[in-house]
């Protein structure tokens, strides 16, 4: 998912957002104890860096 950075387009809005349409009741009802317990931890783990070449500090 992660990519190398690129310069932001000055014409582009630097902020993205979404307004959620779900009601609070709907969301609270969704999160049962079971679903909370089974939710997967979200993480980004990049590959282990390889050995560094001599001459690098």
């Amino acid at each position, binding site marked *: 998912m992660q*990519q190398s950075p690129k310069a932001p387009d000055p014409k582009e809005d630097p*902020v993205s957002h979404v307004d*959620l349409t779900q009601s609070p009741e709907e*969301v609270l009802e969704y999160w049962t104890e079971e679903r909370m317990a089974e939710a997967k*931890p979200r*993480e980004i783990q990049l590959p*282990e860096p390889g050995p560094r070449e001599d001459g690098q500090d």
Partner: protein
Amino acid sequence: MTRTRSLASGLLTFSAAAVLALTSAGGASAAPAPTDGHATPSVASVTVDAGGAADYWTPERMQAAVPGDTLAGKALERGNRSSPLLVQKGKPAATKGTKGKPTIAQSENPVSHIGKVFFTLGTTNYVCSGNAVTSGNHSTVATAGHCVNESGAYATNFVFVPAYDNGAAPYGKWTAKALYAPTQWVSSGDMTYDTGFAVVNPDSKGHLLTDVVGGSGTAFNQARGLTYTSYGYPQASPFNGTSLWSCTGTAKNDPNNPQFGTQGIPCDMTGGSSGGPWFIGIGSDGVQNSINSYGYSGSAVMYGPYWGDVIQTTFNSAAKS
């Protein structure tokens, strides 16, 4: 300070705790059998099914359980009637204690403004960490970009649970009404900008989030190389996601991907801690200046994005909404 947690094993061997449980159920049943005067040492043992024990201990039974010292007193009375012949001396013996693998992360008590966030991306339910921050709308939560948006798709079912502690939600669950992230994160997954903000609804009584749990100040465009304390709810092994942990260290640039502009501190918190806050200085009272973003396999360093102009603009948009 590190709290070592043990996983429930499938079977429990007989122990002092089991003695107390058994005697409470059926009276003194583990007394040594009478001998013929040769005083052969005897050992009683039984195997207990841990699954059954877990089912047995309902909240009501735990509440009604007899204090162990009552049973210990009865055991002492029985012991006073024992024959001295049954007590033998042998060779001194000892076994070494064992410790779980130590972690860099330190166990913490819950903090009112730090919590877990639960959300759905696609059809999968996920958990991350987050922090309530001081804002114009009194309703803004800081977390990671990858906890609000994946490849352009925003999360649904987003809820913040401040001061989460082993399933308890002492300040309730706060549902999101809007999610914000830098466009550079949303459009291209640029690690430089892995930060997101959720604006949450008032609770059922109309109270606003930071009026209830408090909120951290925020700081942007700070010097590099500061000392930080990061917090989160790591869930992947060896952690279990039930409680808050922290790491403290001096930030250093990522030597592997310097183009990200990120900084890292020594920390072995695992998945689930993503989005947890980085405070400048020691402890949770400082201003927030980054979040738990990513790590490398086999490396105990947690990296966080540099909060510069773009993330500040994103925060300002969320905070005034």
